[in-house]
């Protein structure tokens, strides 16, 4: 009996103590209490921006579009008005759309792009009021990409080949324009993918 009462008072004391304690949980949009994202965190894909020539890295070559398992992207290419004086890219992306509601964040598009033009950003909150609000166009993809680039100090993985600034050697120039005609469906190995034991 006495033991029960002591136990009961002990229970009350615990409740009382936690009444004045700072809550451990946080309300959702409180930005200072968010968990930190890991460096490799994969959010939605975004297009990178080449600050040297003020144009996107993407040439609209459609490789990522064919490789995407959910077919959630579309793109069109056009002749680059800056070519050849200011940029080495002969073709440039004209329109690009990703239906982020359909994207499964698998990262395949990043793996297959030979131009370092697409990256998995840290963007992951995309609730929208409109029904098609998650169909993002070129402008928003680039702005997502630019803020990601700034946040992580992004550098192209293959700068010699993919920077858009015109260079003197012609070899790299042909590399950048040839890859866009390689058809991924044909199963031909892309450059650097040659496998000796197959």
């Amino acid at each position, binding site marked *: 009996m006495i033991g029960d009462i002591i136990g009961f008072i002990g229970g009350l004391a615990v409740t009382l103590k936690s009444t004045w304690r700072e809550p451990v949980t946080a309300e959702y949009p409180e930005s200072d209490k968010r968990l930190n994202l890991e460096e*490799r965190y994969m959010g939605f894909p975004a297009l990178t921006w080449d600050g040297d020539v003020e144009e996107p890295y993407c040439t609209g070559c459609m490789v990522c579009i064919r490789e995407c398992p959910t077919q959630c992207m579309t793109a069109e290419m056009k002749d680059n008005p800056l070519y050849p004086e200011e940029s080495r890219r002969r073709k440039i992306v004209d329109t690009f759309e990703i239906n982020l509601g359909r994207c499964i964040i698998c990262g395949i598009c990043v793996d297959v792009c030979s131009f370092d033009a697409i990256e998995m950003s840290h963007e992951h909150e995309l609730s929208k009021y409109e029904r098609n609000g998650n169909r993002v166009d070129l402008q928003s993809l680039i702005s997502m990409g630019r803020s990601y680039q700034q946040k992580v100090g992004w550098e192209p993985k293959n700068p010699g080949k993919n920077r858009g600034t015109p260079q003197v050697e012609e070899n790299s120039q042909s590399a950048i324009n040839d890859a866009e005609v390689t058809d991924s469906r044909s199963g031909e190995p892309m450059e650097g993918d040659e496998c000796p034991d*197959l």
Partner: protein
Amino acid sequence: MQIHETENETDGSIDLMINMGPQHPSTHGVFRLVIWVDGERIIKSEPHIGYLHRGSEKICESEHYSQIVTLFDRMDYVGNLNSELAFCLATEKIMDVCVPERAEYIRVILCELNRVASHMLFYGVYGLDAGAMTPILYAFREREKIQNLFESVTGARMMHNYIRIGGVKENLPRDFQQRLHEVLEHLKRGIEECDALISKNEMFLARTKGVGAISGADAIDFGVTGPALRASGVVEDIRVTDPYSIYDRFDFNIPVGTYGDCWDRFYVRVEEMRESVKIIEQAARDLPEGDISAAVRRIVRPPKGEVFVRTESPRGDLAVFLVSDGTDTPYRVKVRAPSFANLQALEQMLQGAYLADAVLILGSIDLIMGEVDR
């Protein structure tokens, strides 16, 4: 629950048909179980599946090999890396690719971590099934550490797409060993704590001991595999009996139960977490430097042929049968999902049990509906 009444032909009493699910909170997904009870006893039961059927196996036939890995992620969505591994092993076998040592070790470390995470989830949810609220909080605390580690390695907490044909996607982050060490230290304490929390609890024992028992011979007949089979006293673990990847290099035990009841199925998993930690420690110690992926084309095009690969997923024998016709999409992918086979034994386990134990018995098989329906 919907309730129907039918007259029992033999003695004229009334049998109740109870419809549990598909939206029942303790069916672990969308799963419908029709139960006929005579008083408190279950006399017959009938599982209905297919609510989560996405036709994954069929979709595989129209996707490239590298894209299929993402589909396997979504089959067993609690043991994703183990699922990915099964498909990659099958493709590598048909193409005769030799995976670099380092990649093999990375795979083993991550898969075993995934096994611990999966069993932790089972542990927590099983506590809920038995009416205990606390275990899930402890289980999630441990699981969260593993998920964070996954995020730092693969970039995702669940759908990793990290294990690729021929190796893994990218190298481990620089501070991986140190973080892994911290996680393991934490896990070892956590597993003991979780074990001490309910495994020997009198009320938990009373509810699970002797409930839903199935003999080893019956379990084999039903095709039960994994922890559910080992709980019935059968020593069968593909990592040991038919080793794949590099599992033959590690020293670990196969925990086995005695009676095949709910408690054995629960405790085998707790023991298995300890063994997994042992494997991870050995693998992390021996982790070699080197390549992380064999030279494989981006568009994989295996030669004509067929392979059958068995792996030990957290739920049992996950096997992939792959037929290639020499194009860049497979001709047929058949997945032998452990949950699906284990589910077949449910009727036997439920026979004669109390209605109140139905949830416990169902929970003890550790079903993942994404894998049952595919």
